[in-house]
């Protein structure tokens, strides 16, 4: 192709682009890959598959959507893959706050700045759980006992959201815990049921079955106000019956884990806009509400500047905790 015809082509393309309304500026031309930064069955994987399912059901795009799991290295595998795919608008990465938290505390070969943020679509809440037959009725009782002996608190992964929250409790209540990292929240829940640890800070969905089965119960929720009313979990109580931690004198008013969606870096604003729009459409469906309710998450939609602010705030906060603990990588 010679220079003139190239020029001609690009002029036509420009003209065409001008003629089409802005919303349709970019449309995918080949299959889209959803990269879940978690193994099959995890919360992030479930989100990616739920979104895939809704897109397929409502034909929100003409192109097929495929889910790929890259959960190795606590999600780092997926992010490194995204970094290597810079400029490719056919890879959508589903993750959590570990996109910006992990690079702070371990030597992984990516940073969240290598990615293009699309949206935060749902928030997982955190609660403080103890074994069913533990003597503590409130978070206050628990912390009083914790001041006397060093409790064992379990959590998923090391230097990740669970441990950050555990260290925040330590600081707020002036107590000392032994933090024991396991592979997943489900594993932690079973360890508590078996009495091998004294407490954990699981998300609602991770311990729902255990609460129903009366092996463990929540003391308080790390949320500014009580969780939304839903169906009763046990015979007498539902999520909204769990007091907030602030109510019980544990001054941590908010701690949440966002489910985040990203594109690789160096994609065009039009391409990013297409996916923001797509996720908005997904969120408007009844299937989405159903998914949120069944997984006991909180619906949210952050994008653009609001999302950037959220990330910056969270980053500052985690940096502070990590700095105090001496976790920051040099």
């Amino acid at each position: 192709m010679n220079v003139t015809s190239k020029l001609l082509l690009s002029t036509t393309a420009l003209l065409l682009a001008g003629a089409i309304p802005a919303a349709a500026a970019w449309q995918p031309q080949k299959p889209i890959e959803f990269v879940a930064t978690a193994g099959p069955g995890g919360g992030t994987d479930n989100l990616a598959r739920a979104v895939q399912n809704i897109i397929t059901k409502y034909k929100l795009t003409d192109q097929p959507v495929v889910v790929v799991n890259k959960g190795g290295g606590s999600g780092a595998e997926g992010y490194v893959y995204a970094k290597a795919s810079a400029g490719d608008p056919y890879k959508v990465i589903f993750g959590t706050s570990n996109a910006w938290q992990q690079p702070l505390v371990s030597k992984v070969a990516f940073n969240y700045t290598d990615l293009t943020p699309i949206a935060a679509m749902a928030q997982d809440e955190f609660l403080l759980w103890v074994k069913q037959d533990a003597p503590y009725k409130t978070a206050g009782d628990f912390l009083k006992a914790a001041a006397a002996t060093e409790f064992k608190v379990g959590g998923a992964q090391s230097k990740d959201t669970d441990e950050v929250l555990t260290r925040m409790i330590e600081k707020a209540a002036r107590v000392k815990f032994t933090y024991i990292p396991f592979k997943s929240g489900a594993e932690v829940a079973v360890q508590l049921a078996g009495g091998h640890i004294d407490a954990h800070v699981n998300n609602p969905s991770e311990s729902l079955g255990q609460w129903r089965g009366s092996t463990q119960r929540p003391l308080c929720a790390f949320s500014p106000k009580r969780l939304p009313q839903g169906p009763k979990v046990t015979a007498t109580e539902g999520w909204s019956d769990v007091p907030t931690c602030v109510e019980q004198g544990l001054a941590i008013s908010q701690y949440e884990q966002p489910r985040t969606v990203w594109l690789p870096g160096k994609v065009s604003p039009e391409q990013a806009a297409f996916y923001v729009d797509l996720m908005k459409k997904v969120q408007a469906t009844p299937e989405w509400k159903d998914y949120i309710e069944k997984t006991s998450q909180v619906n949210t939609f952050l994008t653009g500047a609001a999302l950037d602010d959220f990330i910056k705030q969270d980053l500052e906060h985690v940096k502070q905790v990590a700095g105090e603990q001496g976790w920051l990588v040099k």
Partner: protein
Amino acid sequence: MISRRALEIAAAALTGIFGVVVIVSSIDNGIGWSSAGVDAGTFPFLTGIIIVLGSLYNMGQGALGRGSLAIVRVAVTASELHRLAGLFVPAAIFVAVIPIVGMYLASAGYVFAVLALPKRQSVVRALVIAVVTPLVLYVVFERMFQVSLPHGALGAALGF
């Protein structure tokens, strides 16, 4: 021709180098006991030490011609080496060209080359197998299980 002694020494050297790499990289992770329990580098460091010591022992045994295989002097004869290369070299080339031409073309080319060139099969038969193989791969992986196999730089250039 490769003598068993040379092969033993080479294998022990290989495991030994791996051991050294393990030791060096584990030092970064910290060794010993800290407030966070047993440090991350401790176990890799110990396994690295074991690998290196074991490799040195194996290398000594190999060099002295002792051990369970002591009677065997020749490990790989010339004709065996020829056959080994006949299998491995095309396979390595196959793997090497995947990023360029993609899985489908590479596998077709590989099957055809291996079957037709040494005249083990008739050209027609080789051609049939070479065409059917990528086709089956495509149907099973790309279509049925939605696992997208690499299309290579060539595929990307053509817009796949």
